[in-house]
Structures are given as C-alpha cells and as structure tokens.
C-alpha cells in the first residue's frame, strides 16, 4: 500500500514539472530486412540537445517534444542512421526501419555518425554486446559463446580456462542473474562449463549490468546478464546453420503472417562422443557425452498496440559411462509476453515466465544402484510499465511475483543396492518485488536515474524447519502446514545514478545501489559438477546484501569513433555463505547446519578503450581489483582473498575487415591466478604424508595468458544462398595455463613431496566451421 502511495506521489510530483503542452512522438524501430525489433536504438532531436531516448526491449520508443519543426535522428550500431524532419503539432506515431550496413567502408562510416550513448546515457556499469562482434571473436573449438565473450570486458572475469562461469566485480558466480527472455537460467553451462547454454544463432541482444543496476532488475548481488532471443524474420523464410568440429547448428525463421508475426526455431547438437569413441579404453568407448539445446520463439502483432511473444528454451546434457554411471542435467524455460501500448506515453508488458533446472545422477552398477534427482522450478508473473511523463522524465515501474519450488533431492534405489531410498522435503516460497524508477533529464548536462526496488521473500510450509547454532546443532524445530508462513524478509533497495555531461564527448557519472539475494547456490564440489543445490533465505540463512558505490569518467574521441571509460567501484557484502569442513551437501536434510556466514568487500578500477567502428575495431579492457571475505570460523576470523580475487585482468580484442570476403580477429588475455590454499607444511598421519595449511587462500595459481586468432571467409555472393568458413586457433603459442595443482609424495625422489600442475589446453587447438544461409 505504502509503495502505491509513494508511486502516486512521485507521479504527481513529476507531473507538476510539466511546464508546457508537449507532443508525443512514439513508434517502433526495426530492421528493414528481417523486421527484428531493435533494442536500445537511439532517437534524438537534432535541434534539442537535452532531448532523446532509446527503444525498450520491444523496440518501442516514446518521446515528448515541444511543438515546432524538428529533425528526428534514429541510429543504431551497425545500421545506417536515418533523419526524419517532422512538424510537431499533434501526437504522432513514427515507425522506422533501419538498414543494416552491408560494408564497413570508410565512406559509410563517415555518413553514419557514431552516437555518444556511452557518454550521454546516465546508465553506468552496463556493457552491451554487439552480436556481430561476438560472432567474430575467436573461441575454443569455434563455438562462439556470449558468456566467454563477456569475460573479455573489464570487471567481468572468467572463472577459469574453458569455463563459462564468470565473476563480476568480485561477486561469486551464483551472484549473477542470468535471464533468457526474462526467464532465470540457473545453470548456464554445458559439458562441465566448457560451453554455455546460449546458442549465438538464436540471440538478438545481450546486456550485462555490473553496477548502477536499473530498478527493474533484482534478486542477485553482483550482476544481471539480460539475453534476448531473436523474434524471427517477419518478411521472408530463411534457413541457416553450421557444421563444426564438435557441433552442428540449424536455424529456421520466417513470417507466420507477413509483417504481423514470425517464428524462429534454432537447435544445436554436439557430438563430443567421437572423442570418446576414439579412446582405447573400453569403458570410454561405450560412453555417451553430448548436449543439445533448442530455442524457439514466435510473435504476433494483433495491431499497432497489441503484440504477443511466446518463447522457450530447452537444453540437456547427457553423460553416461558405459554400465557404470550416468548423469543428465538441463534447463528449460518458457516465456509468454503481452505488449500493450495504452497510449503513446504508456507502454506495458505483462509476462508469465517458467523456469526449471534439474539434474539426475544414476549409478548403474547393481550393487551400488541409486538414482538421485533434484530440481528447482519457478513460475513468475511480471508486470512492467514504462511511462513517458515529459521530455525530461521517463518512469519505469512494475511488479514481480515469483514462486519457487525446490526439490533438494530424492534418492531411489533397488533391493540389491547398498543404498536406501531417501527424500528431502520440498521447499516453497515467493520472491516478490515492486519497483519504480525515473530518468530525469534536469538540463542538457545533468541527468538522474533514480528509484528503488522493494524485494521480499516469503518462505512457506509445508515442512519441518529447523534452526541451528553456530556449531550446527539443532536449536529448535517446528512443523508448518501447507502455505503457512515460516519466515519473511523485506529489503528496500535504493538505486541512484547521476551523470554530468561536460560536452558531447565527455561526462562523469556516479551511482549507489543496493542489491539483495534470497536464493543461494550450494555446491562445494568442483565447478564442473551439475549437482547444484538451491536454498532460499530461511531461519538460518539471511538475505545476502551488497551495497555498491561507483563513479566513472567517460570520454569519446574522434567523433565518437573511440570510446574510453574509467570506472571505480567499492562494494560491501553482508551475509555471505561458506561451508564447514567435511560438508556433504547432496540430499542432506540438514544442509543448513553445514553453512557458515560472513562478510566481504570488493573494490577496483576498470579501464576500457573501445573502437566501435571502422575496418579495424575492437577493445582493450583492464581491471585492477581486490575481493576479500571474512568469516568468524575461517582463517582465524581475518579477511582473506576470495577465490575470485583477481589483481590484474587484461583483455585485448581486435577485429580487422580486410575486404568483402576476409576478416580476421584476435584476442589476448592475461589474468592473475585465482587465490588458492596451498599446504605450508606436512606431517605423518596413519603412515601417510598429510599436508598442513595455514592461511585460507594465501597463495596464487600462476597467472594465465593466451592468444587466440580467427578468420572468416565469406563465400562468393549468390542470389539464393550464402556460405562462409570460420577458422580459429585457440592458444596460438601453446601456453600452459594451469588448471589444477596437486601435492603428493614424489615419484622420483624418495622421501620427499612435490607439487604437480595439470593443464588442460596446453596446446594449440584449431577449429573450422562451415556456415550456410539460404
């Protein structure tokens, strides 16, 4: 109730700022050839510097202008800019179709004035990936991958070589919210993390927020990765695909009703099994190891004001060791969205979202037979509204009701097995939120983006809920009936960003935001394990809280051809989670007794220089940072570096378009090694050498560095079809990046011990993919 009052009073306050009668220009911006709605395209008024807006996630924009004659400028990266003169006397709808630039010739570039969004927008801590660039960055085995590409940006670190996990500004990997068409993707990795669940073919737009979090996002501490699928071509049918070393892809798209509705269906299947079948080991020979995923989307525009989008993702990993054991895991998501334009100021989107992650582990041997399953199931209702109050105020507000069902684990066995049937109670809860934000252009120099998000968690029965003391002993236990409230938490999360424009080419921005997290991932085995267990905040686990302040300087050069930014951040973390010694998390009803809680701090500097346009483009990103955690029960209660504490992280990406047919790309990375705990001494227990440890994470893995190169050859132009070849070499100079360091009794010098390093990609790995489109 209070929230509604606050909203209303804010509306009235903002409404009173309306000094004169404004005319509303609204519409959608789409790709001329495919009808794909363009997200984040810029609309400006040439004559009024402080006016401007961008299209929302559905390509919709709404802009208030004073009466008069103006020139509207529509621009989008990689597209030719369109200028439209208007005579603004009454509200009008202007739909724009932008042409994709066919060639990156110098002439085109000059005629297409690059925009200065990065400088002018009040948003900070946001990175948007251009899918054309993603497709050009060389990657392992030619599997282009947005999760690997984002780790080449400053402030976003890869969790390890050949790992799609990532850390944002010192946060743990479960503190990233990953959304695919608004649905949470709980485990975004395939095949132990070597590949991500995102098939680039099916993706339209990728944004990642690492700070200055917009109020419409919440639920995780560190970042939001917002991935949107392609809508599908509503002009023409197209089929495209690719044949690669380890996978093949196929995508079909086309109109359902021309210009009104379209569909997109994209699938990918790997055949890593062939590596196994080549093995001399009979167990490996008969084993299965593959994954597949399917993205599907359809949309229909009933009229100018109503549109329906239905999209889904389904992915599965299969790993089976012949007659020994097998494991399956995968995500499925589904989203139904309804866009309604109430009037040219008020845009609404209503979503119903489903998300599921589940895994099964099965031991096939008769004497050890068991099958363990676990899953998390979400149903989410969202209402998001966008209101263009005036040319200086744009409001966003909405509600979110998210229901979780978590089945922590069930083990089923048979009569000959060594194991019993076990089942851990399911858990139910609601994560509800409401938000309001306003983008306020105070004058041509100062813009505020401010608002708040009220988040809550309701943990509900049925079930038996226990509280534990620090040692893990049961303090109390209570049984609740179905739907009874066990525990609730409310958090108000302020979000505030201000920007000051010195000129069209430089600005400073500052932000403060609070984020909270009520769903926590427990997994203390290697990150490659799919056995992810999610728990909600409870009597024992408090919501994780992060407060972040950041400030940045943004500067463009050479008519916005070069973008430079420097951002500094500091984060305070509360209620962080770690595990006690010997914690066994799988199918454990008392899993919360195995946790220990602490705090943390993270700070750093990020430098980013990017050339967005031209035959030669790319970027250099550098991060200097520190992340430390503090737990009473660990490291004598002193701060210790988090695993993801990474002092230096450098990425260089270059893409060069030689001519119409050949383009080349290259990336280089250097990163400080993860903080790890190594033995400092040894002793003998039970006749065996045993290692003793001093401080937690007191050592470093060796730093890593790598150079990858790639080339794309476009086929000769045909009327009916198009093909291209992509070549790549991963790890060009065959650097040994350490994956694992273990300690053991020496195999060569008796009576001593040695450290052994394991590398997994210690050689050049070439790849080739053939792509086609017709």
């Amino acid at each position, binding site marked *: 109730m209070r929230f509604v009052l606050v909203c209303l009073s804010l509306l009235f306050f903002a409404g009173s700022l309306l000094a004169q009668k404004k005319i509303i220009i609204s519409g959608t911006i789409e790709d001329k050839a495919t009808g794909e709605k363009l997200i984040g395209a810029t609309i400006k008024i040439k004559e009024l510097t402080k006016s401007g807006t961008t299209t929302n996630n559905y390509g919709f924009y709404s802009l208030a202008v004073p009466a008069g004659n103006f020139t509207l400028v529509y621009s989008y990266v990689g597209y030719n800019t369109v200028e439209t003169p208007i005579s603004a006397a009454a509200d009008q709808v202007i739909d724009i179709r932008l042409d994709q630039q066919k060639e990156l010739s110098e002439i085109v570039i000059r005629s297409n004035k690059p925009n200065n969004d990065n400088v002018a927008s009040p948003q900070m801590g946001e990175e948007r990936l251009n899918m054309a660039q993603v497709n050009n960055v060389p990657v392992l085995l030619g599997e282009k991958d947005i999760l690997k590409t984002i780790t080449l940006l400053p402030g976003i670190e890869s969790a390890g070589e050949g*790992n799609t996990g990532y850390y944002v500004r010192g946060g743990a990997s479960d503190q990233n919210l990953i959304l695919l068409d608004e649905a949470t993707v709980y485990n975004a990795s395939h095949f132990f993390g070597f590949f991500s669940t995102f098939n680039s073919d099916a993706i339209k737009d990728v944004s990642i927020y690492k700070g200055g979090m917009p109020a419409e996002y919440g639920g995780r501490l560190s970042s939001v990765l917002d991935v949107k699928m392609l809508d599908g071509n509503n002009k023409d049918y197209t089929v495209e695909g690719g044949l690669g070393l380890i996978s093949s892809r196929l995508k079909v798209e086309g109109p359902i009703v021309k210009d009104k509705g379209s569909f997109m269906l994209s699938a990918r299947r790997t055949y890593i099994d062939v590596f196994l079948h080549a093995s001399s080991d009979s167990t490996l020979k008969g084993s299965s190891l593959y994954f597949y995923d399917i993205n599907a989307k359809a949309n229909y525009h009933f009229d100018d004001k109503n549109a329906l989008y239905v999209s889904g993702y389904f992915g599965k990993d299969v790993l089976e060791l012949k007659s020994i054991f097998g494991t399956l895991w995968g995500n499925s998501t589904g989203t139904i969205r309804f866009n309604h334009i109430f009037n040219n100021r008020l845009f609404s989107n209503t979503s119903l979202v489903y998300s599921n992650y589940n895994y099964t582990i099965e031991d096939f041997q008769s004497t050890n037979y068991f099958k363990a399953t676990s899953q998390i199931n979400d149903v989410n209702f969202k209402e998001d509204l966008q209101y263009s109050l005036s040319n200086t105020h744009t409001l966003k507000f909405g509600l979110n009701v998210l229901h979780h069902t978590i089945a922590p684990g069930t083990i089923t066995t048979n009569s000959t097995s060594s194991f019993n049937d076990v089942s851990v109670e399911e858990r139910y809860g609601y994560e509800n939120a409401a938000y309001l934000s306003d983008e306020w252009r105070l004058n041509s120099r100062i813009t505020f983006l401010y608002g708040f998000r009220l988040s809550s968690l309701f943990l509900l029965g049925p079930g038996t809920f226990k509280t534990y003391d620090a040692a893990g002993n049961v303090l109390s236990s209570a049984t609740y009936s179905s739907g009874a409230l066990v525990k609730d938490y409310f958090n108000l999360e302020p979000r505030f960003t201000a920007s000051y424009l010195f000129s069209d080419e430089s600005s400073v921005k500052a932000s403060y935001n609070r984020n909270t997290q009520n769903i926590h991932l427990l997994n203390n085995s290697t990150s490659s394990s799919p056995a992810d267990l999610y728990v909600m905040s409870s009597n024992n686990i408090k919501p994780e809280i992060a407060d972040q302040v950041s400030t940045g300087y943004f500067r463009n050069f050479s008519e916005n051809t070069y973008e430079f930014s420097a951002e500094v951040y500091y984060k305070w973390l509360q209620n962080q989670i770690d595990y006690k010694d010997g914690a066994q998390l799988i199918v454990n009803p008392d899993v919360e007794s195995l946790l220990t809680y602490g705090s943390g701090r993270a700070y750093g500097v990020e430098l980013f220089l990017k050339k967005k346009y031209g035959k030669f483009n790319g970027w250099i990103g550098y991060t200097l940072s520190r992340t430390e955690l503090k737990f009473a029960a660990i490291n004598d209660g002193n701060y210790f570096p988090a695993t993801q504490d990474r002092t230096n992280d450098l990425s260089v990406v270059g893409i060069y378009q030689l001519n119409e047919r050949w383009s080349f790309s290259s990336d280089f990375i250097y990163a400080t090694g993860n903080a790890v705990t190594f033995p*400092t001494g040894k002793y003998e227990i039970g006749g065996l050498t045993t290692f003793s440890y001093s401080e937690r994470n007191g050592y470093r893995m060796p730093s890593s560095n790598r150079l990858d190169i790639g080339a794309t050859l476009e086929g000769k132009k045909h009327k009916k079809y198009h093909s291209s070849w992509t070549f790549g070499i991963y790890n060009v100079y065959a650097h040994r990046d350490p994956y694992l360091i273990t300690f053991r009794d020496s195999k060569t010098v008796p009576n001593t011990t*040695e*450290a052994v390093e394991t590398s997994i990609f210690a050689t050049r790995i070439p790849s080739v993919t053939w792509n086609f489109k017709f």
Partner: protein
Amino acid sequence: MKRFKFCLVFLAVTLTFAACTKVIDLKLGNDSGKLVIEGNITNLDSPQYIKLSRNVPFTSTNTYPPVSGATVTVSDNKNNIYTFTEGPAGTYSSAQFPGVSGNTYQMTVVTGGTTYKANSVMPALVPFDSITYKKADFKSGNNRREITVHYQDQAGIPNQYRFIMWVNSVEVSAVFAYDDEFSDGRYVDQDLVENTTDIYPGDTVKVEMQCIDKPVYTYWFTLMEQGFGGPDGGVAPSNPPTNITPAVLGYFSAHTTQAKTIIVQ
C-alpha cells in the same frame, strides 16, 4: 556419491583435449614445529600406541621430529587408567589391553606445559564380511583391478567406517571413510576408488576395516574430500577438524579393527 565426484573430475581432467601434467616448483610457506598427535585405541588385546611428532616445511624430506618427554595417559568411563611409556622416541605405548565397544576413552597428553585432551567412543563392531576384486572402471583394458569391501550395516544406528588398503604391503596413499547416511541397514558393497596405486592380477591386497565414531569420521572424511579439490569451486583445503583440545594436528580414535587379505587374479 564418491564415485560420481571421482568420475566427473576424471573426465574433466583426463578427457579434455590436451591435458598434461608436470612437476613444478612453488614457493610455499614455512609451517613447521606444530604438535601432531595421533592416538589410537583398538579392540585388539595388545599394546595401544599414541604418537607425538611435529610438522615440517613442505620442501623438507619426510622425516618428522618426534616429541619426547610427554606424559601420556588414557582413561575410560569404567575408571580404568592406562599409563603410556615412551619408546622409541615420540611413540608412547601402553601395556597390553583391549578396547571395549561402548566405552568412552579419554586421552590426556601433557607436553611443553600444555595439557591436551580428547574423547572417543569405541563403536560396536560391524563384521567385515569379505573383500573382492573386479575389473576397474577405467583403464580396465590393461587388466587394472578395483577392490570392493562388503559388510552388513547395522540398522537404526549411525555407523562410520574407515578402510586402509595395502597393495603388496605398501599402504595406498588414499583415505577411505564412509558413513551409512544413505545405506543404513543395507548390505553394503563399497568400491575403494582411488587413483594413486594401480592394482593388477598377482598383487596381494590387504584391507583393514575400522568402525569409528562420528568426530573421527568427520576428520577422515574431510581429509578424503580434499583429495578431489579443483582449482575453482573445490573445497578450500584446511586442517581437518580435530577432536583434540586445544586444537593440534591429528586425532584420537577409539575404534574396532578387522583385516582381510586377498590375492588379486
């Protein structure tokens, strides 16, 4: 569960396209001189042993200085007191006596002006049924074998087990600790999965089975888990939680013991 983890790590590391290992030099700290106590009371009617030593830096040879001159006693909840005498240096032994299941044993060690105490309850003996061998899950092409132990878990009470394996009289450098969280009351066939020693036909394999109490199990289980830590997300290794106060390296365990030997074919 163990097998699952083992398989994942095995696959991730050895199946990847160009995995390789090498011995490296690392600058490691100089942790040394810390007291290590290893105390065992078994159900065998024999002298019982408690060993005191100190740890050494990682880079030193595997020789551990004994701690001499300590006062070591063990008492039980039946008012028996057993005095331990030193010899050889750092090894303290009692007169011959058998530990009894159900008794609580308390170890008291006085050295360097500090008194260290630990309690351990000797669990009931669960009979060691048998050991068998079979083709190993991996690398079985060259006749590699895997050992399985068999026993009937006692229903209704928590049981914890530790196994020690010797291949041709050389102790296998691996920890095997299991409980009955998922197998209470079952006839258990437990594969002793390890990757340090390959077993082939002709080898003589001896396995000792210990029934241990819960704190001692946590000690061994923690050590066992650390054998499979990864570089990211794996459990950060630490000294396993000891049942000795004030905390030292090591443990005090009252356990039953049985052993079986098999010649692998």
